[in-house]
């Protein structure tokens, strides 16, 4: 089989001004410019967004889920980083 698949791009959409761009999915495209247009056509047909970002999937560097325990572990033994760790009397508990 001839490999003529185009490169994979990840699509991020800002649904409303003021909100973060959120990952919505991926698509194949020959370059960034086309990816933007394809993303518009396939991901925002019902005005789901006001802004689109496309990123080559190969350019995304991700942490490994399998390693998550080791990777994030150092933070689990610091309960004092959470506001709820400090039990304050009711009278002043709204801070």
């Amino acid at each position, binding site marked *: 089989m001839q490999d003529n698949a185009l490169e994979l791009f990840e699509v991020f959409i800002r649904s409303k*001004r003021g909100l973060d761009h959120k990952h919505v999915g991926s698509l194949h495209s020959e370059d960034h410019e086309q990816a933007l247009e394809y993303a518009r056509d396939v991901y925002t047909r019902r005005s789901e967004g006001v802004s689109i970002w496309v990123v080559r999937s190969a350019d995304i560097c991700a942490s490994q889920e399998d390693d998550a325990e080791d990777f994030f572990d150092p933070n689990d033994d*610091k309960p*004092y980083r959470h506001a709820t760790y*400090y039990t*304050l009397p009711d009278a002043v508990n709204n*801070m």
Partner: protein
Amino acid sequence: MSSEQQTSLQEKQFMHKIKAEEKIEPKDWMPEKYRKNLIRQISQHAHSEVIGMQPEGNFLTRAPSLRRKAILLSKIQDEAGHGLYLYSAAETLGISRDEMIEALQSGRAKYASIFNYPALTWADMGAIGWLVDGAAIVNQVSLQRTSYGPYARGMIRICKEESFHQRQGYDIMLTLVNGSPEQKAMAQDSLNRFYWPALMMFGPHDSESAHSAKSMEWKIKRETNDDLRQKFIDQTASQIEFLGLEHPDKELKWNEERGHYDSGEIDWDEFHNVIAGNGHCNRQRLEHHIKAHEEGAWVREALVAYNAKKQAKQTEAA
């Protein structure tokens, strides 16, 4: 269309977004003064987070227990993170990190004057978390609705982390007031020293504030200095009472009609004096920042060298 007409049209569209409570995003057209105003405010905010680590960092080796030390260390780490969020938000406006650091170190950019007051005792770690972070929270909660998207989102992230800061500070105060008479006196002394500077954090009265009117119109600021300060005064009164400490403001009185506390006047001479660079620690704070920055130069150089080496290897392999 002439370029002038074009600008006024863009300005109209910009104001329309602002009025409709829409956020301005980095790639949108914006008036040059809006951009400048934001860069000033966000970078000043970032500098405050970073300089604010100094008075607390000074107490890391003197925390009364390992637990308190770990908590303080965590809080300081958060402040470094807040500095990063804010510098990054400012960078979306087209200024570089280096330019901002240079402005701070040369004294052109300001940071919150509160950090020019010295931290003298362990109780100050309590008062700072409770009052200084407390005042910052009142301001930051309001800024979650600021008109510039990246700033607003940064504020939301920061506010989520701040509550722990204020609570650990109050927790220190609670422990002290329930301790020996000396410890309670230490808490009172700390409250006395930090209460007024905390009120000054909200800036001059609205009638005196140079940047306020335009900032409000552009919705960079959402509430005025005096309104925010009033909120802080109101919420702090009962917290002081609960600690069983004496209120530093002898004129503080509940005003039934207004539904707020009336309060005594701030010493504005002191305020202007500290801003002008004559606070206890102005020189020390900047000197320390410059020293740390210079001593860290080899790390930045090593990063660049490593990067260059890696790239050279890659081209070699290709």
